[in-house]
């Protein structure tokens, strides 16, 4: 009896030894004195309470498995193991909430060639604040220059991975959907432009959709880049005669420029376009309008028009503002130049004031305004109280960092960047602290981010926050677009 027990124990020992030899465990991992190189790079980022799990994988194809333990500085742990982490959403939210204002320490072990390695721990900072808005909206589009491919406007819940289509052209060939823009992240008012056979400017306000004629003949173009007045009655637009050209050699593959552009204000109550010579100068190209949070100023950029296409790289935009009277809809008579970027050999685009009125974020590039194709484009911050301006060094990359928008509480912002691979723009989120410093941005989380982003042939465009689901009726909108009924707009000049 004793001998059979001995044999059984010995066999058990052999089996355990055999299994151990076959698969070493993270407990036996060899220590590596380096931070793990993970995708997305979530090392040392700052997140709001309520954000979806920050799943990641090793950025090394040779790593077959990853074993991750997340420990909160104020308690709680999470464990995930696999090719990529797949944190339980509810458990993740509980852990992050528990560590509000603290940090999550992340221990990563990765298996390579059958051996486990343990890297230096890194941390994810948890902000004191909640996720400011329900989600974000964006356009997803594949790179294409002459034909309209599949594209759509989508909304994404930030606390989960849920994405919903707002409007796409999958059943409407030849339709190009542009720039969905809410009023300060409030989807009760939003606008988007549709080009192609069923073209229109779709304006949602007062609980209903209005389809405006895509082109106003007196304006000589379409309503292109919008920005809502905080009061909701007005919406500023640029109108642009846009062209593109391609380089045979330069890294900037495509140049997008305007042979003509102006800025104007649209009155949603009267369907009138309020133009003024101060923002519609013949020899200047005004562009990228944005109202101040108090609604009393209209920011825009302007550049001296050039000879196109040869002098495309001499087109440099400066930041200006003009007063606006929302009670009368009148545009002021004096234009202030806030930053004469042209004199510094630079070009400013996409001014976006924070909704608390403290800052104005903009994109700075060497020339032009279509900065998402400029590798040198970076985000800058202008302090509207002190006039100080500086690049957001913790945010910028060596590749294009461009189109940005603020959260409704002004504490967070998102932007698009081509830092991943130089070709496809992705959405990143960051925050501005009380000291005015930006935190390291984090890539929009996905359940399996490495596969998701690697397999995607789409770029993210014109993202913005949304305080709640947009709740549009896409079928009704498509039906209305196909009907051809359009509201004409009337041009008025003071």
């Amino acid at each position, binding site marked *: 009896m004793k001998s059979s027990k001995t044999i059984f124990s010995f066999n058990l020992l052999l089996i355990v030894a055999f299994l151990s030899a076959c698969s070493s465990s993270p407990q036996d991992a060899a220590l590596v004195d380096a931070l793990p190189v993970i995708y997305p790079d979530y090392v040392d980022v700052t997140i709001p309470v309520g954000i979806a799990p920050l799943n990641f994988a090793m950025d090394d194809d040779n790593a077959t498995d990853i074993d991750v333990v997340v420990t909160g500085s104020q308690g709680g742990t999470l464990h995930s193991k696999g090719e990529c982490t797949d944190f339980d959403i509810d458990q993740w939210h509980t852990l992050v909430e528990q560590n509000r204002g603290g940090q999550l320490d992340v221990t990563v072990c990765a298996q390579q060639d059958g051996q486990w390695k343990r890297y230096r721990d890194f941390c994810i900072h948890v902000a004191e604040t909640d996720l400011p808005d329900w989600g974000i909206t964006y356009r997803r589009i594949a790179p294409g220059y*002459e034909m309209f491919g599949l594209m759509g406007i989508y909304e994404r819940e930030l606390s989960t991975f849920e994405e919903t289509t707002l409007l796409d052209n999958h059943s409407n060939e030849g339709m190009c959907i542009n720039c969905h823009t809410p009023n300060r992240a409030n989807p009760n008012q939003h606008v988007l432009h549709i080009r192609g056979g069923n073209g229109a400017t779709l304006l949602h306000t007062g609980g209903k959709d209005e389809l405006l004629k895509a082109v106003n003949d007196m304006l000589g173009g379409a309503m292109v880049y919008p920005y809502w007045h905080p009061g909701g009655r007005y919406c500023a637009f640029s109108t642009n005669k846009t062209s593109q050209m391609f380089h045979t050699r330069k890294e900037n593959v*495509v140049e997008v420029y305007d042979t003509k552009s102006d800025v104007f204000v649209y009155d949603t109550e009267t369907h009138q376009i309020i133009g003024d010579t101060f923002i519609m100068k013949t020899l200047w190209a005004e562009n990228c309008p944005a109202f101040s949070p108090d609604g009393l100023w209209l920011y825009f950029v302007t550049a001296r028009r050039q000879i196109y296409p040869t002098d495309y790289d001499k087109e440099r935009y400066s930041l200006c503002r003009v007063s606006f009277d929302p009670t009368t809809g009148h545009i002021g008579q004096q234009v202030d130049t806030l930053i004469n970027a042209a004199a510094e050999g630079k070009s400013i685009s996409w001014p976006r004031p924070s909704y608390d009125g403290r800052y104005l974020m903009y994109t700075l590039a060497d020339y032009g305004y279509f900065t998402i194709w400029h590798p040198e484009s970076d985000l800058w911050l202008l302090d509207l109280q002190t006039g100080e301006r500086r690049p957001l060094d913790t945010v910028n990359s060596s590749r294009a960092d461009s189109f940005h928008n603020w959260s409704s509480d002004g504490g967070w912002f998102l932007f698009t960047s081509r830092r991943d691979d130089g070709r496809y723009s992705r959405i990143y989120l960051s925050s501005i602290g009380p000291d005015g410093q930006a935190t390291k941005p984090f890539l929009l989380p996905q359940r399996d981010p490495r596969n998701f982003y690697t397999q995607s042939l789409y770029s993210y465009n014109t993202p913005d926050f949304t305080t709640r689901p947009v709740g549009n009726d896409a079928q009704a909108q498509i039906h209305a677009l196909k009907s051809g009924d359009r509201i004409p707009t009337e041009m008025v000049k003071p």
Partner: protein
Amino acid sequence: MTTERLLAFKCALCGVLVLVGFMFCGCQRTPELVGGTPEEQAYDLLLQKGKWADIVEMNRKQPTKSSACRNAVRLASWYLGQCSREELDLCLADSHGVLGSETSALMMSDIYLRLGMVNMARRAAFDAMVAMRSEKPNSRALKRLTEVAIITGENELARKYLLIGEQHSDCLPWTKKLRPLVEHPELIVNYPSYKKIREIHEKLKDDFFL
């Protein structure tokens, strides 16, 4: 047999012959056909095979109205020494409206790549991809995007396209061929065609294409 019937019979016979021809081509793994007009498809096949004399002859018999096919004819003429590089470049410079279909975009991508204009080859491949209006990538366009990324040294991008290609069975023949090059970009010296295009690209003067 009446003249009409004879004509109908001849047309039917031609149709069958063309169909059999295409089936035979398919069995031989000849270049793929995608979208576009029959004329563009015919030129595209000849272009992929480098049948320059046949391209010029086809145009002589029935001058083409397609911009992409005209560019193929000009390229063929240049290869045959019937026109100068300046004349060819002049013809190519106005690219507006040339990429009207998947086939024309793929043809233009081939033409640009042969001339070392990798940026333009990529642009045309992107347009071929979106012209499909499908979530499934066009194998030939995806291969071209991978090739261009390899030639320009954008290795992260080449890897991305390769990984996408490896998910689709129709892409596997070229992904197998290109994987070593993506893993070891320095091996481009062993690929004379890519090496040569990279050299041409690096010496290319920057020009605008509208």
